């Protein structure tokens, strides 16, 4: 209880890993640069502005969800239903497009469905006090299940031409619309998490929910808002992805929740909650994007890439713990 005298409340848990964590973003940045250099030596097609621009699609959609997911995980919860929210919002937008709704209407419907999905998750977690991991495993089946009921083995693809702007448009030269979205949301979430009372509340809930409650933070309301945000970000990612693919099948974005969680954890967010940063997630997005793009140039099939993602997810958490244990056993 000596900590009570300190006025400074750290963002991070004070663990023996503190030093490793402190330099996590720096380490990650070094990895990103190394992969970039490695890729440019490995393939002559890598250092091409248009190729690199295409490569950003590997992470922009996932990263937009990862920002909101980072906040959810820092608060000590998790949302595994994000990929299914993409499927459901995409299905709703596709159905609207079939009825001849214009682009603004399609986008509004997508956002509304995402918001509704987030509210549903949030209500179950905060209203009924259920564990988020089970709730979102359930809604993961439910949301995608509704897409399957609506679509079966069919697909929606009658999107208006103007809808293509989100996923296929360019703002300036090789800078895609999605990349601009990515940076805008990175700044918004960075400010919200690191510069606002709301962000402080998220950290304190993740570190000690009971303590946060006793210090006057409306824990349930904050968590509910976080699930809403995740739903909305999944909807925005769905708008981009649907627009880019130009069609909706119920299997859209299948398994993406894993990549989003991997990105967040790779970015240095503690999976048990309480610590992490948005800059870390941004760099992690670049690392994952570069890895998948580089492997793609080397003709590595997607499923083999998923082995790398899985190893990355476990390795990123396991290695620091392993080193810490070795260090402890030596001293």
């Amino acid at each position, binding site marked *: 209880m000596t900590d009570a005298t300190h006025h400074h409340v750290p963002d991070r848990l004070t663990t023996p890993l503190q030093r490793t964590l402190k330099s996590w973003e720096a380490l990650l940045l070094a990895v990103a640069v190394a992969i970039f250099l490695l890729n440019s030596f490995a393939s002559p097609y890598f250092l091409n502005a248009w190729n690199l621009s295409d490569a950003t699609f590997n992470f922009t959609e996932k990263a937009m969800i990862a920002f909101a997911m980072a906040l959810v995980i820092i608060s000590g919860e*998790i949302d595994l239903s994000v990929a299914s929210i993409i499927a459901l919002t995409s299905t709703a937008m596709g159905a609207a497009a079939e009825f001849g709704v214009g682009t603004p209407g399609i986008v509004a419907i997508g956002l509304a469905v995402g918001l509704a999905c987030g509210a549903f998750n949030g209500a*179950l977690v905060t209203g*009924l*006090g*259920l*564990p988020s*991991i*089970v*709730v979102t*495993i*359930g*809604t*993961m*089946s*439910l*949301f*995608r*299940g*509704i897409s*399957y*009921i609506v*679509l*079966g083995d069919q697909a929606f693809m009658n999107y208006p031409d103007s809808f293509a702007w989100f996923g296929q448009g360019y703002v300036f030269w090789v800078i895609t619309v999605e990349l601009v979205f990515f940076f805008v949301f990175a700044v918004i979430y960075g400010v919200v998490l690191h510069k606002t009372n709301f962000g402080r509340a998220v950290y304190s809930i993740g570190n*000690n929910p*009971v303590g946060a409650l006793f210090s006057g933070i409306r824990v349930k309301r904050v968590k509910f808002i976080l699930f809403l945000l995740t739903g909305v970000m999944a909807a925005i990612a769905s708008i981009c992805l649907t627009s880019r693919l130009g069609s909706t099948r*119920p299997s859209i974005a299948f*398994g993406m929740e*894993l990549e989003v*969680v*991997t990105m967040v*954890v790779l970015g240095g967010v503690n*999976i*048990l909650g309480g610590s992490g940063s948005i800059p870390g997630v941004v760099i992690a997005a670049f690392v994952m994007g570069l890895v998948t793009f580089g492997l793609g140039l080397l003709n590595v*099939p997607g*499923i*083999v890439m*998923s*082995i790398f*993602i*899985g*190893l990355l*997810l*476990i390795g990123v*958490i*396991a290695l620091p*713990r*392993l080193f810490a*244990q070795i260090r402890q056993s030596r001293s």
Partner: protein
Amino acid sequence: MISQFLKSREAILVAAIVSLLALIATRFPAFVEPGNLVNVFNDTSTLIILAMGQMCVILTRCIDLSVAANVALTGMVVATLNTLMPGLPVAAILLIALVLGACLGAINGLLVWKLQIPAIVVTLGTMTIFRGIVFLISDGKWINAHEMSAGFKDFPRMELAGLPMLSWFAIVVVICFVVMINRTPLGRSFFAVGGNPNAAVYTGIDVGRTQFLAFTISGMMAGLTGYLWVSRFAVAYVDIAGGFELEVVAACVIGGISIAGGVGSVAGTLLGALFLGVIKNALPVINISPFWQLAISGSAIIIAVAFNAQQGRTKGRVILKSAEHTA
């Protein structure tokens, strides 16, 4: 005693299954004929076997999302072995499947035990790694029926006293789990670890080791299912049992296994699996598209977990909650 049983999860599930069957029988009496019920049970056998392993994991406050990928990997390995060595007896294949499955489960368990990585992260990772390895082994190709030996394919269909081998496996597994959960120190330690890890440590139980054993058991069941699945459908490919881990978790949650650990029973898990099995088999009979299956199991998970929470609330106060938080 009787009133207590009537309020229990098992009684509610029995009532739900019986009324579901009765409802279907009013329109389609053929569905409840003994022959068809045997088919339904046989079709649910793989789910029952996997749910038993998953039950142990969830009891210890963990979750195993890699079971379906484990099924696919073990299934592909034994199918490949069969094409290379058609003479290998089924007993050897079964042993290989059990050992390989247990090893894959032990990898999960070691990461949870030795490095204290949350189970959800570990198994999300190994889920994709295992599936990726299936692709590497098979090169994305299918192993079809004509490439498998007759003995390999026919074993799960062999009938003994009117029941196929597959069903017998499920029955034997359930009996083993009843004995293990209720009559062995290991079974009790699953409950102790899940109920209160701090107290478990003070009673001399190694929490991490218990979780490791739960994962190994879950993996072993997945390995067994791997062989049974591949030989029953006489095909092995990368995506077999895709998404089945969710159905397995659903069976456990519906069966009254608390995701917070420490609460549940073998009978509940069995009934939870049977409940899903009856729904799955009834859908085509009552002319509902199989595309409804996913949404129904999702809803079932949510309803069951909400129900579990309601039941948990009436049980009494949680003492030492703050102490548990530090765990």
